């Protein structure tokens, strides 16, 4: 009997059909992969499985019995639990408190915590996944990967609620993990399979193929296919996801133009700050420079420092030969520097504000006549960029939060282009959380900008991305630049070459 089955699930949102009769089968003790682009209906489906979304039509069957899931607790009673993409732990509580939170059971007697019992309960959960995290450690002292383990341990408590093997859903668990941590997580998933069924969702097809037994592909709110992972290749899956063969040249490498420039656009000497020391780097006009490094290498802070958002203690920054000071983000904007932050939803955009307002936020001059906003000028400008970047939005005054991730990111990028004065773009994980199609469009846009003479510093989401996009790669480690690797089209280094330099 199937551990979990979904039949013909339909969910309408005003104007969109998020789920259009999706079918899904999860067998006992298997790892099922769920693949699909943004907007394919993955998140709605997952939410329906844990009772956060009430489907309009269709059935959810747990071990053959049709069930109605009203909320997360209800789902847990049926043995379904989810590890959310955005972590849901309370940072100032201990790991143990988080693990029992919401289902304290024996850990609370007469309204009072019994710490010994709680630690024992938590330890039991941690033992299940073979983790050696101290249950009494405060959650905010743990690393992201450790916190994820705590979440898995927490979800596993649903085992106590039903006698049957649980179904554990992992929503994009790898998106912020380093490769070593991903390995650990995969080992964990394989271990989970012994006593549970796992639904694994990821953007990265190689991962899906690596860890799953079977993959169900969603497109446009339907299940469009199922693949046994043994012997499957990413390209085949990709084709099912987008409904056609993707471009072979994902990174648009053919559009790359050789850099010819005597004087570097950006020249940094001896830049030091809280988490980086003595950083030298040059970027020429039209060049894409990627900085790679593990977590804690300081590359994010260097990027922020170049935008005036992180204080520096020493060093010199020159733009086109002229020395500049960056005491504030405003100064950086004025100097023709643009920055796309990694946390799009929190730092990149203002979700409740319109596409037009978000697009013109940094370059107010572009929509103003004198000190006043000129509505017609703004409309023309915004519409032009909506067309040029093919941003899919109902109207220019639609709230940006309602667009898909890829379109949001294009608006955030457009913010720096509308002024026509951007000379240097700092892109901090510009493709994080985007699906393949949207990624490809962002890559194309980066190429276009580079060929128009914009210098780019890229903190890539993966080594492959860095290698695919960059003309040159800097390796950072412990706050210092440790190596520089040329990365011309036709002479790309392998990821292994870079990893050697990183550790």
């Amino acid at each position, binding site marked *: 009997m199937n551990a979990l089955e979904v039949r013909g699930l339909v969910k309408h949102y005003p104007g969109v059909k998020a789920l259009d009769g999706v079918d899904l089968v999860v067998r006992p003790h298997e790892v099922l992969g769920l693949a699909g682009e943004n907007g394919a209906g993955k998140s709605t489906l997952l939410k329906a499985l844990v009772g956060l979304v009430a489907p309009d039509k269709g059935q959810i069957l747990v071990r053959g019995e049709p069930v109605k899931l009203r909320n997360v607790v209800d789902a847990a009673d049926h043995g379904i639990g989810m590890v959310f993409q955005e972590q849901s732990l309370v940072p100032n509580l201990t790991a143990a408190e988080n693990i029992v939170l919401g289902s304290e059971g024996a850990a609370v007697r007469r309204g009072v915590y019994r710490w010994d019992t709680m630690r024992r309960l938590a330890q039991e959960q941690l033992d299940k996944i073979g983790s050696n995290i101290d249950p009494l450690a405060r959650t905010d002292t743990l690393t992201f990967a450790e916190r994820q383990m705590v979440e898995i341990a927490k979800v596993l408590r649903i085992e106590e609620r039903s006698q049957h093997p649980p179904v554990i859903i992992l929503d994009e668990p790898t998106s912020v993990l380093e490769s070593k941590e991903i390995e650990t997580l995969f080992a964990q998933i394989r271990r989970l399979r012994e006593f549970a069924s796992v639904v694994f969702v990821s953007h990265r097809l190689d991962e899906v193929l690596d860890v799953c037994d079977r993959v169900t592909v969603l497109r446009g709110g339907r299940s469009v296919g199922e693949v046994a992972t043994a012997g499957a290749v990413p390209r085949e899956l990709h084709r099912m996801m987008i409904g056609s063969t993707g471009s072979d040249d994902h990174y648009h490498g053919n559009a790359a133009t050789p850099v010819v420039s005597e004087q570097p656009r950006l020249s940094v000497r001896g830049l030091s700050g809280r988490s980086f020391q003595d950083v030298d780097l040059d970027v020429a006009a039209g060049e894409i420079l990627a900085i790679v490094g593990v977590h804690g290498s300081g590359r994010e802070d260097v990027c922020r420092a170049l935008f005036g958002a992180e204080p520096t203690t020493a060093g010199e920054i020159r733009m086109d030969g002229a020395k500049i000071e960056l005491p504030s983000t405003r100064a950086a904007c004025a100097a023709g520097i643009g920055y796309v*932050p990694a946390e799009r939803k929190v*730092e990149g955009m*203002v*979700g*409740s504000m319109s596409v037009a307002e978000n697009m013109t936020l940094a370059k107010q001059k572009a929509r103003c006549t004198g*000190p006043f906003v000129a509505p017609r000028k703004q409309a023309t400008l915004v519409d032009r960029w909506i067309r040029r970047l093919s941003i899919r939005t109902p109207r220019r005054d639609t709230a940006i939060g309602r667009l898909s991730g890829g379109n949001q990111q294009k608006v955030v990028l457009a913010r720096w282009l509308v002024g026509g004065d951007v000379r240097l773009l700092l892109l901090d994980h510009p493709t994080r959380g985007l699906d393949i*199609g949207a990624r490809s469009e962002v890559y194309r846009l980066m190429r276009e900008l580079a060929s128009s003479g914009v210098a780019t510093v890229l903190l890539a989401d993966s080594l492959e991305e860095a290698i695919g996009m960059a003309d040159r790669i800097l390796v950072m480690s412990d706050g210092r630049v440790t190596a520089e690797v040329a990365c011309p089209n036709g002479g790309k280094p392998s990821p292994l070459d870079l990893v050697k330099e990183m550790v």
Partner: protein
Amino acid sequence: MSTSVAIKPPVEPAVGKERTRLTGFMPLIALAALIAALTIADPDFLTQRSLTAAARTAAPLIVLAAGATLVVLCGGIDLSIAALASLSTVFLALWIPDLGGLATPAVILVAAVIGVLQGAAHVLLRIPSFIVTLGGMSILSAVALVVSGAGTVRVVDDSTVKWLDLYVGGYVPMSVMVAVIVVALIAVLLKVTPLQSWVSATGYSESAARLAGTPVDLVKIGAFAVSGACAGLAAVMLVSRQFSGGPTMADNLLLPAVAAIVVGGTAITGGHGSVWRSLAGALVVTLLRVGLPIVGVPSAYEQILYGAIIVVAVALTLDKSKVSIIK
């Protein structure tokens, strides 16, 4: 959704649009409903005299709330407005004999400067605006007591502020005209300049605003300056009615001003709202204050009704689709 295989862009749902438009008018609807209810309770309420009286009472509150709305829109709060207005009444009463007509702009300027100081303390020392202005409230109250000698300062020759207590066309109090003009000025200034974007962005998401090069610090200090100046103007209105300044004269306007802002539907968490909403909110709050006794609600029940109506009004006017977290 951004692949070459185009999925139709989500169509803006008609229902959601209707609802947004409706919540935009909610403060006005609440105001109309309140007037209707008061009229039903006592048909005599809807006379020109009582309406004029209510409007006159509302004027200083409208100005106070409008100024503080800017700070709230930026995601902060200004608790010092009432104490600053009290202090300003004292300054005005003390300065009129020497400065005459210049006393009014002088008081408004000083109040604005005090606002700037608080804003700068909030921004530069990175202290929450709640704390800065709580301290400010206490300090300003104490200064008012010291400066005034802990007593009312009479204005003997009130010719320079008397104009505010006149009536336009015999019916509309001048102070109300001024209050509406101030609200309109702030609203237009926001609307036609990038300030609207800057204020909203700062209020919704300060980090995003900062990373887009928005002059967040200046915007916030500016909001406090306007809030201070408005407190100064409210003080002028109070003095023109009472012919005196007093160290606690405006103190009881703090909570009504905050109530006016939230009843108008401005999110206390920042970003969403407008000064027009606060104008409607100030009228609702004032009508409740003066209206409930007029229609004969016993004073013991007045507070209960007041509290209940405020909460219900906020439930109606706040557009929850625009505010993700309600704290």
